[in-house]
């Protein structure tokens, strides 16, 4: 039995992400993917059952990989300010270093695969981040509030800034590059807004 060629599998994953972002779900076919990978369609079907299976597997692996990066050095027991700052640092780094994967995950989020995506993220984040915010509430650092309100204030600004940066443009098409100054001044305001 021929062992799985790890390099080929990695190549297929990488090209699949790029192709998905380039042509979208409808435009994505096993044929096109096989071509850009320089392999036969048959080879693809050895590793994956069909298009849905491929997209899901590749997508979920990326979600898990990026989630792990986002949780690096994150201690749910630390202070609210420190913890949130670490989250901003990690998520910014992760998305800046993996712009194509980030875009793909956004696409997945607004697709029929979204449930699986939410589930996968939820699995990784729910416990540590849940504990983190619970600790902050118990310590009186922040007030209890609906999760959506919290998340929108805590992370909405970050994701917006990252989106501007990845698109190279901000409001009304003005050219934009995310700098530390812009990032952390936004963070300071978020912190001010959330802290009791």
């Amino acid at each position, binding site marked *: *039995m021929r062992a799985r060629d790890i390099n080929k599998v990695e190549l297929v994953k990488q090209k699949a992400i790029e192709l998905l972002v380039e042509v979208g779900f409808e435009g994505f076919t096993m044929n096109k993917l096989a071509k850009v990978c320089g392999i*036969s369609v048959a080879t693809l079907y*050895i590793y994956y059952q*069909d*298009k849905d299976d491929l997209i899901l597997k590749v997508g979920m692996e990326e979600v898990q990989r990026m989630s792990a990066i986002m949780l690096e050095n994150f201690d749910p027991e630390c202070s609210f300010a420190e913890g949130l700052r670490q989250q901003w640092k990690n998520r910014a780094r992760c998305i800046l270093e993996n712009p194509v994967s980030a875009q793909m995950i956004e696409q997945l989020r607004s697709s029929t695969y979204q449930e699986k995506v939410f589930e996968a993220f939820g699995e990784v984040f729910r416990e540590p981040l849940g504990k983190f915010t619970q600790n902050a509430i118990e310590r009186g650092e922040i007030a209890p509030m609906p999760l959506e309100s919290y998340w929108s204030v805590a992370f909405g600004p970050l994701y917006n800034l990252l989106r501007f940066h990845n698109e190279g443009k901000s409001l009304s098409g003005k050219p934009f590059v995310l700098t530390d100054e812009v990032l952390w001044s936004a963070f300071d305001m978020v912190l001010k807004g959330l802290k009791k």
Partner: protein
Amino acid sequence: MEINIKHILLFKTDIRTEGDKRYIGKIMEEQQIDQWTVDLHDIDCVLRIVSPTLKEEEVIELVVKNGYQCEILT
């Protein structure tokens, strides 16, 4: 689950719609073929079968007999 590559059989077909797929599904069941999929999104409508016992010619005969095109995918 590690799949034995030798057990994976791939075919180009004209099984295009959900209806076609359901019909083929019944045939697969009769033949006790457990693991099979058809990629309806793909231009080749790839039929993928995982079986330690079936031979390619057997599958082709089976599918063609039931009114669909079927050839080995290269």
